[in-house]
């Protein structure tokens, strides 16, 4: 999923303070699962803002909405009837959701209330870790199901580097060394020899380096 964390209150307050009527929009997908921008977080942020402005002696009107999927124009269309009543939109979705709203409602300012962080997986309750960088040419099949691009601090394709210590990365004792994990997994699979195969320099065109990416499925495109 795409993970996010809420921005600091001061930053959010600074964005919305010039406005009187705010449309606060959450998303029921990834940010809801990682407890950053779902219905519950929308309600919490709304109350916090109300409280802040009340103390300032200012009344602010906040309408709360949580869309099924904010990165989908079909759902964003649901906001159309509420836009006239709003001076600005505060979105709790990932950057994709914020941009979908900005593209649909061109004359309405839209502010992000969360920092979109990474594509990750849940490790346990309340803990998410980065797992994928969307490089566009998946290597997991040759690296034992552990991604060195997302999980090695130097994204080495032929690791580990000389800083791997007791299974941990040199940058932080709380970060697993991806290549230790890969090695352990290759051993478990009986594929130790594979560690000596040189993985060739990557073609980054499939990643962000090739320019903004787009998927067009002719069979589905309308």
């Amino acid at each position, binding site marked *: 999923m795409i993970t996010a964390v809420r921005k600091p209150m001061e930053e959010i307050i600074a964005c919305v303070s010039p406005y009187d009527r705010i449309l606060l929009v959450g998303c029921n997908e990834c940010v809801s699962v990682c407890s950053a921008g779902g219905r519950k977080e929308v309600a919490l942020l709304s109350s916090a803002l109300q409280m802040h402005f009340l103390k300032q002696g200012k009344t602010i009107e906040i309408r709360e909405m949580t869309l099924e999927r904010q990165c989908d124009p079909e759902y964003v269309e649901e906001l159309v009837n509420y836009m006239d009543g709003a001076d600005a939109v505060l979105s709790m979705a990932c950057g994709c959701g914020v941009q979908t709203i900005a593209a649909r409602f061109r004359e309405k300012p839209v502010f992000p209330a969360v920092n979109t962080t990474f594509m990750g997986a849940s490790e346990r309750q309340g803990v998410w870790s980065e797992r994928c960088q969307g490089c566009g040419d998946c290597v997991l099949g040759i690296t034992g199901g552990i991604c060195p691009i997302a999980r090695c601090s130097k994204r080495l394709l032929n690791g580990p580097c000389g800083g791997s210590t007791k299974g941990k990365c040199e940058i932080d004792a709380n970060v697993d060394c991806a290549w230790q994990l890969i090695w352990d997994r290759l051993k478990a699979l009986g594929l130790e020899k594979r560690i000596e195969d*040189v993985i*060739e320099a990557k073609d980054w065109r499939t990643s962000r380096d090739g320019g903004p990416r787009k998927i067009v499925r002719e069979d589905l495109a309308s």
Partner: protein
Amino acid sequence: MKTESRLEKVLASGALAVTSECGPPRGALPEKVREKAGMLRGCVDAINVTDNQTAMVRMSSWAAGILIKQMGLDPVLQMVTRDRNRLAMQADIIGAYSLGINTMLCLSGDHPKFGDHPMAANVHDIDSVQLIQMVVKMRNEGKFQGGKDIDHPPKMFVGAAANPFADPFELRVMRLAKKVKAGADFIQTQCIYNLDKFETWMEGVRQRGLHEKVYILAGITPIKTAGMARYMKNRVPGMDVPDAIVKRMESVPKEQQPEEGIRIAVESIQRLKEVEGVSGFHIMAIEWEEKVPEILEKSGLLPRPEP
């Protein structure tokens, strides 16, 4: 001979080679480079010039290398994959070679977190193994990494690093094998304090016959103080400083510690000279270059051969 490298000639002659290193200054004073390199004149076969070591900005490795070349000495261009993409690296390799630099060392580099620009982007377009492949392809096939022909290709003698002390240990010989497979001509190791562990690693290296495919230079760093020993033991990733070394440094009064550190370095060299497969030494006397001649003299590694 694959190249014009003096280091290659010394190694090919069968003599124990000696390299040392020079960290370029954090400023534009060429004198600082000349001063450090000057201390090594006549004592070493080549001088490594570090590339933004510990992720701190310094005079570029190739520029400092050229200053050293102009002194009639032989620089080893260190290159990390952290700061530049493959276009910039190949451009620098050609540029350095055009000015007479013919030996280089391929590294991934310390993470920016450790330096004074922790906010910098981490490039790693390619990694150190792929950098070895790239330089070897430029030399052997006369082609850029992208596949097009090079007009007058650079012929670099290609080095790589090995850290026998990093984890997982069982992987460390295989990792060397991988660098050899990628085409490395010589290896400079991490500083060796745990000689037993190094010898165990070398045993694994010999079992695979890797010492016959690549020249291995054992890394030596003299310890100045007991504090430095403790710091390296506890704070430097991938460094193995046994308690016995720390205790030995602590056992002598502060003013005698530098001398003790030199003694340890000389004893290590003496012992490692006897290890089959060790082709020479890489002395990294960090900000203590003036002691290199003394260490080499006491270790019986002077005078240097004229290849």
